[in-house]
């Protein structure tokens, strides 16, 4: 039982790290551009498929390095060609647009790579358990958590230490002032979108090593990411990170006692948070309305 609990706590953290990666990307875009990106799951799958295609030529590590950037590039094109036109309009429209994009993504991925799951190799040095006592601690799982942590750390460093990051943060807080200061908001939003999609692509590459890679791989991850953002608080990236980890953990622990409620528990958390603190755990006041 202890082992089970221990494992599930660890497992919850892994899952939470995934949610957080996805949710951070979503949150970046939502905060600066006011767009809920329904196509995020599609970008995730795209990242995984790009890596899958590249691996025979550049190896697992090459795929891991290149695919997220390639995904981000596609994201930037999409933003530039479509989403940009909807800034400043009712959020309804960007919602519907990305919703439509999600449909297109799923279909195009299926047309290119087929509906069937494809085998996605991970390096043998990562694919074995570390010890037979803690057999669930595979190298790959530890690697995933480590990398996710590293990336999140890097993200926060970028946001806090670089010029681009500070502009993104400033833009999130007060877009008008930023544009008055002579910063090109359009380019800022495009780059920010690319950054968000990079995270989605990375999450995809990592997910494919653990899950079967097929066109709908992203759909099961997008809703938890929404919940992570709501629980953590709109407008707060640390909140999103916290929200992701929390719901991952909660789901992990619930899996021990009441497996069929694994998903339900995060929605219950969301309900409680909304009841007690409508703006989310670390959300800013006034963002809600």
């Amino acid at each position, binding site marked *: 039982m202890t*082992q089970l609990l221990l494992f599930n706590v660890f497992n919850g953290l892994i899952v939470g790290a995934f949610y957080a990666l996805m949710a951070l990307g979503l949150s970046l875009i939502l905060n600066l551009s006011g767009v809920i990106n329904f196509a995020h799951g599609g970008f995730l799958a795209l990242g995984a498929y790009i890596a899958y295609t590249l691996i025979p030529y550049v190896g697992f590590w090459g795929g891991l390095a290149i695919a997220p950037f390639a995904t981000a590039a596609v994201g930037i094109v999409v933003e530039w060609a479509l989403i940009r036109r909807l800034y400043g309009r009712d959020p309804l429209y960007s919602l519907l647009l990305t919703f439509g994009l999600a449909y297109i993504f*799923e279909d195009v991925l299926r047309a290119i790579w087929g509906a069937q*799951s494809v*085998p*996605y190799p991970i390096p043998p040095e990562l694919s074995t358990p570390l010890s037979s006592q803690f057999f669930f601690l*595979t190298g790959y799982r530890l690697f995933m958590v480590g990398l996710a942590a590293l990336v999140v750390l890097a993200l926060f460093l970028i946001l806090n230490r670089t010029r681009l990051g500070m502009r993104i943060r400033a833009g999130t807080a007060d877009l008008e002032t930023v544009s008055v200061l002579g910063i090109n908001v359009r380019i800022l939003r495009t780059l920010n979108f690319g950054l968000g999609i990079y995270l989605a692509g990375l999450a995809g590459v990592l997910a494919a090593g653990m*899950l079967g890679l097929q066109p*709908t791989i992203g759909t099961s991850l997008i809703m938890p990411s929404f919940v992570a953002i709501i629980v953590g608080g709109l407008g707060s990236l640390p909140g999103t990170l916290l929200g992701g980890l929390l719901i991952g953990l909660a789901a*992990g622990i619930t899996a021990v006692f009441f*497996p069929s409620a694994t998903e339900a528990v995060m929605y219950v958390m969301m309900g409680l948070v909304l009841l007690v603190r409508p703006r989310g755990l670390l959300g800013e006041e006034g963002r809600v309305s």
Partner: protein
Amino acid sequence: MATRMPKHGVNRRTLLKAAAATGALQVAGPFIIAARGEEPVKIGLDNPLTGTYAAVGKNELIGCQLALEQINAKGGILGRQAELLVEDSTSGDAGTAVQKARKLIERDKVNFLLGNVNSALALAMADVSSEKGVLHIVPGGHTDAVTGATCHWNVFRVCNTTQMEANAVTPTLIKNAGKKWYFITPDYAFGHTLQAGLEKAGGKAGYTKVGGDLTPLGTTDFSSYLIKAQAANPDVIIFLTQGDDMINALKQAVQFGLDKRFHLAGGQQELEALEGLPPEARIGTWVFEWYWNQPNVPHVKDFVDAIKKKTGRVPTARTWFGFASTWSCALAANEAKSLDAVKMAKALSGLKLPPEVSLMPDQAFYRVGQNQLIPNLFVGQAQAKGSAPDDLFKVTEVVKGTDAAGTLEETGCKMKWPV
């Protein structure tokens, strides 16, 4: 080709056509057919092409298409050309599946209805087809009820019941893997009945159930179930999950090194799933409902070659389901010398599939009183590499369907024919 749906992709013309006035083309449809003179015999396929079951649905479609070409090359159905109308039922949306079934029956006036991979949708479609009295063949929906408790005179099924699969695999499972079983069962009708079937068959062979978990359909992370399974210390962990769930579960079990400590095995296994697994996870004892590598069985090689020519890949059990279903339509009509559904159903009931359709050592037949096809079942081991690149399964025993099918009473089917 007489198939309504283009086989692949979107070319620009299709795009323009579809974007153009929707009504106009629909109006035009019937007139074109009428102008050609004699109306073709229509077979409507209402099966998933998108979503979870898209891959297997597509394979069934390919089998249907091949059968259709052969049927037309051999003179069609009752001397008329046969036409396949394809509708995407989606993988789980009953609303769409039912709507498409009604569309095929009511508007397109199909003579035969085929589908569905998803058992629940197959049942929903069976309601429609029996209400309208259209001959309906279910290629690949496994839940026992289709030819069991809710059987209909007009509904036939090609793939096996879960009980048949369980009966076929159990002796080998106990011989290879041992008697202490732990179940990882997907939480929907298929999983429930497959587990019940295995428990029933295992009970006769003296198995012990040391535990089990119902996993929600679409579970991505099986680790918490696996950790419980290993704690129960079984001889064998039985995976009854299918498709992507199967891939996720096995992939993770092997990553955890459980394959080195326990046997990993199960009931139904499909080539589609083995192809999606990394080589090291292609392990365990399973039952296949049809397998392409049957060197000594006549006609199989022709079939495999024909499919390879179409798709570049070997046929799977799904391809064969589609193939046999479509051929069954032609056989029923030609046998009954009529397109009347009751006459055709009577003709099909008890009919033996000819060797070039049956494609297995013993000729498969539709059992009277249940409308269930009784074929051979292929029990064996999954393998990382075989004689050929697509040879991922080693058949160790071919089980006779009659041995696996149980008695008619056991199926619970009480067939009522229209008076």
